[in-house]
């Protein structure tokens, strides 16, 4: 559908104001993705109205918001989780301390924890969803939720190594719904990961593919990059 400049101007204003709702809002977002002139009209309204935001009185965020942001970006071990009961905070602190100890010992053994294989799985518009990183010898894999993706409760997202020789994808495990997991890879998984240039994410029944091969649709594919260890 082709809109007149006056219509685009009106839709952009209502979009930025927030009164364009429902399917009309989604149509306008699609239009923005396709048409630079529409994006320019939208951005002009963003600039015109932005100072209205100063009408809301500032509120200082709780301290854990910043640590949660770092945690979600995979930039820090801090895993701030709001509203966690005190005993859980203690348990987390205790297990983090244990983990840090184990990590120190392990890293003293070799430099295995410097990731040499990593990928960031992105969604629509390049939004980062998860970071996947393998340790130096690919014996461990860490999956960190960045933006994540909401899926029905009866489904799970499963991560696969896609071998460059065209062999069948090999499961690397389930993607956590929040935070991060670190898993030990078995020899077949490790070999498959080292022989892959891409990882894929498929939507599976809860708990993962019952058969060992992807049964659901592949919803994301990401390139693995190799860093110099």
């Amino acid at each position, binding site marked *: 559908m082709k809109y007149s400049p006056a219509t685009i101007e009106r839709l952009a204003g*209502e979009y930025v104001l927030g009164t364009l*709702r429902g399917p009309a809002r989604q149509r306008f977002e699609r239009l923005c993705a396709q048409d630079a002139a529409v994006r320019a009209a939208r951005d002009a309204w963003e*600039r015109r109205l932005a100072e*209205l935001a*100063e*009408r*809301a009185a500032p509120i200082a965020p709780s301290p854990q918001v910043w640590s949660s942001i770092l945690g*979600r970006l995979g930039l820090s071990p801090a895993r701030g989780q709001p509203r966690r009961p005190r005993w859980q905070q203690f348990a987390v602190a205790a297990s983090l301390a244990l983990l840090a100890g184990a990590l120190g010992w392990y890293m003293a053994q070799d430099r295995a924890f410097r990731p040499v294989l990593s990928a960031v799985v992105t969604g629509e518009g390049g939004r980062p969803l998860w970071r996947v990183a393998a340790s130096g010898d690919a014996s461990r894999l860490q999956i960190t939720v960045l933006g994540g993706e909401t899926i029905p409760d009866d489904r799970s997202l499963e991560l696969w190594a896609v071998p460059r020789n065209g062999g069948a994808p090999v499961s690397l495990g389930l993607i956590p719904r929040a935070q991060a997991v670190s898993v030990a890879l078995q020899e077949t998984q490790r070999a498959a990961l080292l022989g892959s240039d891409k990882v894929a994410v498929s939507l599976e029944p809860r708990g993962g593919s019952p058969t060992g091969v992807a049964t659901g649709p592949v919803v994301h594919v990401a390139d693995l990059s190799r860093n110099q260890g």
Partner: protein
Amino acid sequence: MDSLLRRCAQRDVTALEALYRATSGQLLGLLVAMLRDRALAEDALQEVFVRVWASAPQFDGFRGSAMAWLTSIARHRAIDLIRARKPFASLDELQLTGLEPAAEALVAPESSATGNALERCLRQLSESQQRCIDLAYVRGLSHEEIAATLASPIGTVKSWVRRALLSLRQCLEP
């Protein structure tokens, strides 16, 4: 602040932290005004900064200030959350639980007017038009919710909004 965003684009975490320190209070105030739920607003604030980090390389295409860009990301996240949650059970509930307690959270337009062009143009609108812009932008209300709040027909509200936007555009870009 613009240079902080450019440093974020180069993956400088200290720049992200400085940006967060400088803007998170204002953004959280806006998110709370729109979502009327402190915990939800703090979750949204997290998502905003995760998004800012990821999208920082696109800031240069925006041609506006860093604060305007951050505000747009925060507001659209809030509107998505408002859309995704259940509609208010009734408009009565909206009026009782939503608007009145949070009303003092809004700075009166007069006191925040530091002579900027937007506030000057807003004052040229009718009182109803001003209320519509405020309720939509700062409170995240839909046409229907504004109509209920102002006890006015929805058709009237829609035309107030349309005319207010036209006047603002003319006033801001003569």
